[in-house]
């Protein structure tokens, strides 16, 4: 028997299996049942496939770094986006997470550079400006080549707090600080929209 997540939770299974269950359980969104299911799926998986998975995890840890300019996850420093001569170096879009870069890149609507903060200010959880990649952003802006900073943090309390804080901090360093438009989502329903979304939608209305 092997002791797992809780002191009163014994799994009558082999130690390596219980250990893997514990490791899966640490991942976000993975509960104890999901961790057990994933582990037993891997137990039944051919050894070559398991080795591929293990190798992929190790390669991801060994061969990825943060781009020293945009702080995005990359294989090379600077990353391909920062090196791309087609990109508009006068614009920087500020994002919370590396996944947000993928979301914006999928739109093909933006051709500037990025800066990834790796989180958002969440004072109630003890995450303040010092925990984010803000000093790297200030260094980039002090270079003087940037004319517009686009604040594209999430439209929630943490994202808004981060955007307002950054605006105060950088407004004297760049000509223009902009915020992504907010309003009604495609497929949304006006009657269910909250007051702030509707207010912002009216403020940001455009000529038809």
């Amino acid at each position: 028997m092997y002791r797992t997540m809780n002191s009163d939770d014994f799994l009558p299974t082999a130690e390596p299996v219980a250990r893997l269950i514990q490791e899966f359980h640490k991942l976000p969104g993975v509960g104890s049942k999901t961790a057990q299911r994933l582990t037993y799926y891997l137990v039944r998986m051919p050894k070559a496939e398991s080795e591929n998975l293990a190798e992929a995890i190790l390669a991801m840890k060994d061969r990825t770094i943060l781009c020293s300019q945009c702080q995005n996850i990359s294989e090379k420093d600077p990353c391909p986006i920062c090196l791309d001569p087609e990109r508009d170096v006068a614009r920087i879009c500020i994002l919370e997470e590396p996944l947000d870069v993928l979301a914006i890149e999928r739109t093909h609507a933006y051709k500037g550079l990025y800066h990834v903060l790796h989180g958002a200010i969440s004072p109630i959880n003890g995450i303040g400006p010092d925990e984010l990649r803000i000093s790297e952003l200030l260094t980039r802006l002090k270079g003087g080549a940037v004319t517009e900073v686009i604040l594209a943090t999430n439209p929630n309390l943490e994202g808004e707090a981060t955007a307002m804080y950054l605006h105060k901090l950088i407004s004297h360093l760049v000509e223009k600080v902009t915020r992504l438009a907010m309003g009604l989502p495609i497929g949304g329903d006006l009657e269910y929209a909250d007051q702030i979304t509707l207010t912002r939608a009216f403020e940001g209305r455009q000529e038809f």
Partner: protein
Amino acid sequence: MSTPRLYNTEGLVLRSYPLGETDRIITVFTKTAGKLRVAARGLRKPNSKLAGHLEPLTCTNLTVSRGRTLDVVTGAESRESFYFIKTDLPRLSSAIYLTELVDTINPLESPNPYGYSIYLKGLCALEEESSNVQLILHYMEMHLLIQAGYSPELHQCTECQGKIVEGNHYFDPSHGGVICKACINHQTNFRPVSIGALKVLRFFAKSTLKDSLLLKITQPLQFELRSLMDAYIRYTLDREMLSKAFVRSVSKLEGTVHVPTT
């Protein structure tokens, strides 16, 4: 008679955590049932009908369905979104701090209608453009502590019960209030307190928020009150409020009000 499967309540959303792929767990301070933890499905999808109504710092009418482990929000309509607070950094940082204080002081599922009404009044006062943020914070801190049973003693020495007279008063968080010179224990973290600060704290303790906001307080007195309340809250709740650091960062950035660190 069986308990109804659905119930309606009014509440102020305190915080939320991601749950699974698109859900969230919401901590909401309700008017009738106290602080509750409920699940909200699909809240992280862009076209979620509930997301905007369940953002932290929103007063909302909730319809909740009883669940096995967590109750689930099935309907929400915001009553007040506190738009001005959410677009003004100093007010937002202060509101987040008050929210953390409310969350820390109130245990789960313990009805506290008075605490709810104080918190709501505080947020409404912060929403008013001309209101003094520092005064609101001091008043709210005092009344949130009083309703939780941590009222500081401000009239007589907490050691000898003697009347506090001018020029002979100190404040000691570990004693729960003021202390006279003769009773000072040099092992504890006592500090001198001015007669002005003592009078303001006494006034806050017995007055309404509306009356308290009429006070005119000098900046040195504000620093003193800030320092006293911080020390008292830290000792009483046995922890530093995490959002306090952000309030200080914002004050520094604004360059308006200096918030002391001790």
